[in-house]
């Protein structure tokens, strides 16, 4: 029986573990090593690599575009994160408070998630943000805010925020679902007891819902971090021709560095620096993960 189990365990696990080693472990290790070397082309053999110490990291931090990309991703994570979390929690609370048509509303709010970002982005740029006939400017005009309606939503000082709003719009549904599943696990009698004792909506929310949602909150933060660090398509959509300081992200910068620039110019590729970007991003993910573990302690409430 024991040996039978053993062969079964090996047989069942081996393919998955092998794939994991090949597609996750090996590349991760190699990328980390690569980040300390001067490597031009991504396919260059190891014999062409030259040890560069922390040189790649130094070069990156002296490149204005990369610094902009870090600033952008930090803002996306923080401001977008707060926005998405607040709105999605609000929607989660509203939808679990006994409204009619809950599943319909929930489905519609989640809907943007299933549509390709390329489709959504094109629509935002060409319709919502269009200064002549766009949705935003016509709505603002119709309520008399003509000055605001004349805003160039995709100009350099606005394009970052426009991009962020468009991105966050799609993310709300996803995080709302996660909040909702957390809220729905809270026993109803907690609320009933609180209501009997005269607690109002806000008290019930802050005294019961919030504390019991800590675990879900951590999940949301981790998921948000992982998805924002891969921020790429939206940046490409909002600066389709070449990189702009206001929309560049580490991922899109890496894409240029490793695979060649889209400018019609002579730019040397630098895959070593691309690897260094990967390492930096991974460190950020790990740090955020540990911080969220630390701040929202696991053992608080297990739901």
């Amino acid at each position, binding site marked *: 029986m024991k040996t039978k189990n053993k062969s079964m365990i090996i047989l069942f696990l081996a393919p998955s573990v092998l794939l994991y080693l090949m597609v996750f472990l090996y590349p991760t290790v190699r990328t980390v090593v690569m980040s300390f070397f001067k490597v031009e082309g991504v396919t260059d053999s190891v014999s062409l690599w030259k040890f560069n110490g922390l040189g790649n990291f130094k070069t990156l931090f002296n490149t204005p575009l990369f610094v902009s990309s870090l600033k952008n991703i930090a803002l996306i994570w923080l401001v977008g994160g707060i926005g998405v979390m607040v709105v999605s929690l609000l929607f989660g609370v509203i939808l679990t408070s006994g409204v009619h048509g809950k599943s319909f509303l929930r489905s519609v709010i989640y809907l943007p998630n299933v549509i390709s970002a390329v489709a959504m982005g094109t629509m935002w740029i060409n319709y919502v943000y269009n200064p002549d006939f766009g949705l935003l400017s016509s709505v603002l005009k119709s309520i008399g805010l003509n000055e605001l309606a004349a805003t160039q939503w995709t100009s350099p000082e606005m394009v970052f925020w426009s991009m962020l709003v468009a991105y966050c719009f799609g993310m709300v549904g996803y995080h709302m679902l996660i909040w909702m599943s957390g809220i729905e696990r809270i026993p109803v009698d907690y609320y009933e007891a609180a209501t009997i004792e005269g607690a109002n909506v806000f008290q019930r929310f802050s005294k019961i819902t919030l504390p019991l949602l800590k675990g879900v909150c951590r999940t949301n933060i981790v998921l948000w971090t992982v998805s924002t660090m891969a921020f790429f398509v939206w940046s490409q959509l909002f600066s389709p021709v070449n990189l702009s300081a206001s929309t560049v992200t580490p991922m899109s910068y890496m894409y240029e560095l490793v695979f060649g620039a889209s400018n019609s110019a002579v*730019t040397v590729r630098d895959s070593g620096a691309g690897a260094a970007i990967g390492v930096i991003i991974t460190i950020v993910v790990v740090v955020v993960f540990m911080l969220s573990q630390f701040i929202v302690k696991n053992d608080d409430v297990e739901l």
Partner: protein
Amino acid sequence: MKRKLSSLMAVLLTCAMVLGGCSGGATESNGAAAGGESKGEGKSDVTLTYYSMWNETEPQGQTIAEAVEAFKEKTGITVDVNWQGRDIRKTLQPALDGGQEIDIFDEDIERVNKTWGKYLLDVEDLAKKSYDTTDGKPLTDVINKKLVELARSLGPDGKLSTIPYQPSSFMVMYNKDIFKAAGITEPPKTWDEWLADCAKIKAAGKTPITVDDAYMASLFGYHMARLIGKDKTLAMVENKKIDDPAVLTFGQQWQEMYEKGYISKNAAGNIYPAGQQEVASGNVAMYLNGTWLPNEIKNSAPADFNWGSFAYPAVGKDGDGTNANQYGAQCFGINKNTKHAEEAFQFIVFMTTGEWDNKLAENSIGVPMANDAHLPKQLTEAKAVLDATTIRYPWAVGMEDVADINAKIKTNFALLVSGKLDAKGFADAMKK
């Protein structure tokens, strides 16, 4: 439950079989692409792999696809086109590095020669031969000499390594009907005339000029070169410092353009291709752009759109005159590791001479490569500009060579032409 499972398993099994079938198919087609090494007499059975900068849906792509058919009929050589579109800027180099079998590739003449120079086969000798579409003359004698010279000067070690096609030039493209309506008979040659004409266009109820993020760097580069000359402009990029005192002059002149409402109010927020759509809709008169513009907006502009072109006006006494312009072309290059150099060159000749040269130009409102080429009527004025050109600017007068500088121009110029920065603020921001 049992039945459900068995049907699920049936689905899985079918899919697994498809998987097997598919991966089998993939190797097969790989085999076909790698094969065909034997050289035959007369009708060849060689297969060439061509990484194309076009999408199959563009007029150029459609024409090339037809040409590939005709070429196969004539020579027996199969050209396997890999339609990359402009993504070729990212995909070609890693593919070449990785040793993928690619015989022909194409892109902008500067990019192919400078960025991809080390992959190119020297074609001097092949180009000296005559082909059945060259009337017994060497290829280099029947195609645009200016561009052959350019290709040679850009080529690795000054050797001709690419064959240009689809010539283009960068100048002010304008709507002649708007000019007529505004009472402008002659396009401007100097900045003062330019401003005067802008005033007339504005008075006629139209917007004089627009731009979007794709062409801001070009506009800045052109204007700077008109202020301080090509060499000094390129030197700024070289030193990565946009600090010439004339940057302030640029700022003042375009601040004036903004304040007088001569530049479209949407310019700052235009994301390509929003700028040229403003021209297509007939609201904007001018756009500093490529001679490809009539082709790119032919679907959204009225069919009888009256195109004109003139060189960017002369601005300062220390700068270049209207005889300095960017011109270039797309070009074909051959991979130096190819096993079929001759066949590949044969295809290039087929595309750049005779019937298909003309068809390509015709379908894309472009310029043929032949020396005695007939130009589409949209580009008759452009030809005059090009003929008068003696100094060549590189693309965007170098302003796109450094990603950081390009990004800086896009941000600050947009702020300048939306009134968020004044001339001084612009010059300071560019210096940083």
